[in-house]
C-alpha cells in the first residue's frame, strides 16, 4: 500500500516538502465535513500511504531526498523537523558536495553511475520497511541537471530493479522564459528517456501555476513557495485516500495502480495533465460556497477547451457532433479548437459528493474513437473533504493538454540544436549529437501520436 516518494534536486526537494506538509495538515484537519469515524479511517489510510510510525509519535515521511549539493536538503530537513508535526527519516537522504551544473549529461552520465550503488541501496532499505510496495513517485524538474539527468538515470534503474512496481514521475515544466538557458535541451533529453522507463508522466507547468497564484489566489508578490504550495495542493487532491466502492467499500489500497489502469491504456500515451476546481486562497474559502453542477460544468469546459484554470475559459469550443466525419487532423501550431482525450479521471471530494452528476464527462465525443467512454472515463468519489475545501474536483487527464507545450519545447530545443550552441557542454560528458537526435525522434513521435487522436 505504500508509495515511496523520491525527491530529486532543488525543485523536487522543495516541492516534496510542501506535499508532505499539505498532506499532514489535511490529515489533522477537523473540517472533514464527515463523521468522526469516517475521518479516522481516512487518517489511517493516509498515514499508511505516506508515513511511517515512530516510537516518538512524530510520523516520518516515506520519502527519500536526493541532491548533488547539500544546501537544499539541509534546509528541507530542518523545515520539516521544525514543523513538529512530521519529519523526514534520519538516514533518508543522499547528497554530494557539488551540483550537476544544470547539465543533463553530467547528472545522467557522471553522477548517475557514480552514485548508483549508494542511491539504490538507500531505496532498497526504504522499500524493505513496507509489506507491500505499490510504487514510486519521483518529483523532479526538467530544466536543471540533477532532477532531470540523475532523475532519468534513476528512473531507469528503478524500472530494472522493481519491474512490478509502478513508477510515476511528477515533472515540473519550467517557465517558458528562462529559468535556465539550456532548459529545452534538458527537457527533451529527460522526457525522451523517461518515456521509455516510466509508467506515467504527471506534468505541472510553472507558467500555469504562476497564473493561478496571480489570478485565483490573488498573491501579489509570488514566491516559489507559493507556486510549490499550489502544486502540493493539486497533488494532494489526487493522492490523498479515495473511497473505492469496488474494493469492498473502503479506502483504495492501490491508488497508483488504479490511476495507471484508468489513464494509461497504451504505452505511447503517457503525458498526464492536472486541473483543479475551485482554486482559491484560504481566506476566500470561508466565504464561498459552490454547487457541484457549476463546478463540473466549468471543469468539463476546461477539459474541452484546454483551459489552464477556471478563469478565462473559452465557452465557444464544443465537442464535434457525433455522426459527423472526424475533424481534420489537429496541427499543433494551428489554433486549437477541441481537446481530444484518451482517458480521464475525475476525483470528487467533499459534501454531497454522491449527488454530483458526471454525465458530461461520459460523452463519447470527448474521446478518441478507439476507446469507449466506459473504458476511458473513471470517477473516484470521497466525502471526506480535502484541505478545507468543502467541495473539490480534480481532473487527471490523458489528452492533448500537453501537446502544445511539448511541441513548443521541442521547437526551441531544435532551433538551438541547429546552431549547435551549448552542445559541447553535453558531449564533454558523453551525450553525443546522435543521442540528441534520438531524443528528438522519440518526442516528435509522441507529438504525432497525440496530434492524430
Amino acid at each position: 500500500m505504500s508509495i515511496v516518494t523520491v525527491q530529486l534536486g532543488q525543485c523536487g526537494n522543495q516541492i516534496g516538502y510542501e506535499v508532505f506538509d499539505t498532506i499532514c495538515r489535511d490529515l489533522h484537519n477537523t473540517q472533514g465535513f464527515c463523521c468522526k469515524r469516517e475521518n479516522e479511517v481516512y487518517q489511517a489510510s493516509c498515514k499508511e500511504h505516506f508515513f511511517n510510525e515512530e516510537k516518538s509519535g512524530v510520523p516520518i515521511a516515506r520519502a527519500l531526498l536526493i541532491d548533488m549539493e547539500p544546501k537544499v536538503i539541509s534546509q528541507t530537513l530542518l523545515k520539516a523537523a521544525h514543523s513538529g508535526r512530521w519529519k523526514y527519516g534520519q538516514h533518508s537522504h543522499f547528497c554530494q558536495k557539488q551540483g550537476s551544473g544544470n547539465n543533463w549529461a553530467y547528472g545522467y552520465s557522471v553522477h548517475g553511475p557514480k552514485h548508483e550503488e549508494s542511491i539504490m541501496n538507500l531505496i532498497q532499505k526504504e522499500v524493505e520497511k513496507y509489506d507491500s510496495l505499490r510504487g514510486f513517485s519521483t518529483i523532479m524538474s526538467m530544466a536543471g541537471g540533477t532532477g532531470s539527468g540523475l532523475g532519468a538515470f534513476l528512473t531507469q534503474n528503478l524500472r530494472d530493479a522493481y519491474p512490478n512496481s509502478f513508477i510515476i514521475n511528477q515533472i515540473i515544466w519550467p517557465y517558458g522564459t528562462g529559468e535556465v538557458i539550456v532548459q529545452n535541451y534538458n527537457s527533451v533529453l529527460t522526457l525522451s528517456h523517461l518515456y521509455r522507463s516510466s509508467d506515467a508522466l504527471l506534468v505541472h507547468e510553472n507558467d500555469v501555476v504562476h497564473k493561478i497564484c496571480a489570478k485565483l489566489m490573488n498573491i501579489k508578490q509570488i514566491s516559489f513557495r507559493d507556486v510549490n504550495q499550489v502544486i502540493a495542493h493539486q497533488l494532494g487532491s489526487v493522492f490523498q485516500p479515495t473511497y473505492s466502492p469496488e474494493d469492498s467499500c473502503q479506502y483504495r489500497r492501490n491508488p497508483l495502480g488504479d490511476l495507471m489502469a484508468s489513464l494509461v491504456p497504451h504505452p505511447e500515451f503517457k503525458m498526464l495533465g492536472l486541473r483543479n476546481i475551485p482554486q482559491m486562497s484560504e481566506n476566500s474559502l470561508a466565504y464561498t460556497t459552490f454547487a457541484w453542477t457549476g463546478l463540473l460544468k466549468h471543469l468539463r469546459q476546461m477539459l474541452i477547451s484546454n483551459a489552464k484554470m477556471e478563469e478565462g475559459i473559452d465557452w465557444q469550443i464544443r465537442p464535434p457532433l457525433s455522426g459527423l466525419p472526424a475533424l481534420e487532423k489537429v496541427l499543433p501550431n494551428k489554433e486549437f479548437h477541441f481537446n481530444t482525450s484518451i482517458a480521464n479521471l475525475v476525483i470528487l471530494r467533499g459534501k454531497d459528493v454522491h449527488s454530483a452528476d458526471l454525465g458530461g464527462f461520459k460523452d463519447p465525443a470527448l474521446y478518441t474513437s478507439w476507446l469507449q467512454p466506459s473504458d476511458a472515463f473513471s470517477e473516484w468519489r470521497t466525502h471526506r473533504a480535502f484541505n478545507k475545501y468543502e467541495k473539490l474536483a480534480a481532473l487527471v487527464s490523458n489528452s492533448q493538454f500537453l501537446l502544445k507545450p511539448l511541441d513548443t519545447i521541442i521547437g526551441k530545443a531544435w532551433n538551438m540544436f541547429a546552431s549547435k550552441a551549448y552542445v559541447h557542454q553535453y558531449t564533454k560528458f558523453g551525450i553525443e549529437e546522435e543521442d540528441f537526435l534520438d531524443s528528438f525522434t522519440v518526442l516528435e513521435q509522441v507529438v504525432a501520436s497525440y496530434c492524430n487522436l
Partner: protein
Amino acid sequence: MAQSVVVQVGQCGNQVGRCFWDLALREHAAVNKKGIYDDSLKNFFRNVDTRRNGDGVDVSKGKICSLKARALLIDMEEGVVNEILQGPLKDIFDSKQLITNVSGSGNNWAVGYKVFGSQYQDQIVEKLRQTAEHCDCLQCFFIIHSMGGGTGSGLGTFILNVLEDEFPEVYRFVTSVFPSGEDDVITSPYNSVLAMKELNEHADCVLPIENESLFDIVSKINQMVTSGKPGTTVKPESLVTLNEGGIKKKLQEKPFDTMNNIVGNLLLNLTSSARFEGSLNMDLNEITMNLVPFPQLHYLVSSLTPLCTLADVNIPPRRLDQMFSDAFSKDHQLIQADPKHSLYLACALLVRGNVQISDLRRNIERLKSSLHFVSWNQEGWKTSLCSVPPVGHSHSLLALANNTCIKPTFIELKKRFTRLYKKKAHLHHYLQVDGMEESCFTEAVSSLSSLIESYNELDVTKGLPVHDPLRLNIVI
C-alpha cells in the same frame, strides 16, 4: 559544499584581492552572528586551530577558531603583498600562501610568463597542491590580475596554464582588468594581446573589467552622495562604497580602493548563490554551462546594481524595477560597452535579497523587448534567487551578459597592438627573453582576430528575419 581558491597575481591582482577578502569577511561577519564555522564560510575560508603545533589543524565544524583565506598571493615585487600582510587582514594569510620576488617583471609579459614562470613553476605547483589538499571538494579557481602589466599578465596567464594541467576538472574563472586608452604603460597592448591568447585557450570564463568604467561608476556614486537631493543619503554600511571610514573621505583620497571594491563585490555576488541558500540556487558550474554556448566565446560583461543604498527603508516596487533597468544601462557595465544595442548570446541575472520569482519575471517581460537576442536563444535567460542580501542593502542584482558589445574592446586592443607592432617598437625587450620569438606575437594577434571574427559572424545575424529550421518528419 564546494570550495573556491583565489589566486591573486601582480600589483592590481593583489590590490583587488585585498578588497575582496576584506569585503568577504565583513559579509560573513554580518550574516554569521553565532560565530559558527558553517558551510557558507567553508567556500572561501579554512577554519584553523592555530594553538596546535605549527601548521594548525583544520577544524571542520563548530566555533570559528581562526579563519584562513583559501588564497595564493603572488607578485614579483614585494610592496603590495607586504602591505597586505601588515594590514588588518594579516591574520587570514600565512607565509605558505605567498610567492614574492623583489625585481618585478618590468611591465613585460615575456618576463612574467617565460622567466618567472619557469623559475617559480615548482613552487607554484607545490603551493597550489597544498591549498587544494585543504579542500574536500575544490570546484573553482578565481584568478585576479591585470592584462597590461608584466606579472599579472605574464605570470598570471602562466599560472592559468598550470591550473589547467594540474587541475583539469576545476573551473578557471578569470577576472581581468583591461588597460584603458590612456594607459601609462606603453607596452600594455603587447602584454594584453599576449595574455588574451592564453585566456582564449585556457580560461573557462573571463570577466573583463576596465578602469575607465570603474572610475565613471565611482564618480557617479560621488555625485549621488554629494548631490544633497532629499532621500539620497547613502547608508554608511553600504558595502559597495567603502572599507572603513567615511565615504566622502575614501572617495577623494583613495579612488582605487573604491574601484577595487566594485570588483570585490562582483566576486562576492557571483558566488553568493553558491554560498547562501535561496529558492533558486545557482552554482558556479551553472554559469559556464548556461553562458558559454561555444567554447571560445567565454567573455562575460558584468554590471552591478544598485550602486549604493539610499536611506529610505521602504523600497517601492518601482525602485526594484529600476534596479533591473539600471543593470542594462551602459553606465553600469564594468567595461566600456553597451549591451542594449548589441546582440545577446545569453544573459544571467543573479538576484540577492527580498526579491521573488514574480518580480524577476515581471522585469524580464518588461525588458526583453528592448534587447536583441540571437535567433537560437531568444529566451536566453538564466536566473537565480539568493535569500541573503549584501551588507547594507535589501536587495541587489548582478547581471552577466555574453554579448557582442565586447567586440569593440577587442578591436581597440588589436588596433593599439598593431600600431606598436608595425614599427617593432619595444619589441627587443620581449625577443631578448629566452623562448620568445616573433611567432608568439603573430599567433597571439591571430587568436585575437579569430575571436573578433566570431563575434562579427554573430553580429551579422542581428536584425535578420528568423527562419526556424525544419523539424524532423515523422511517418506514423
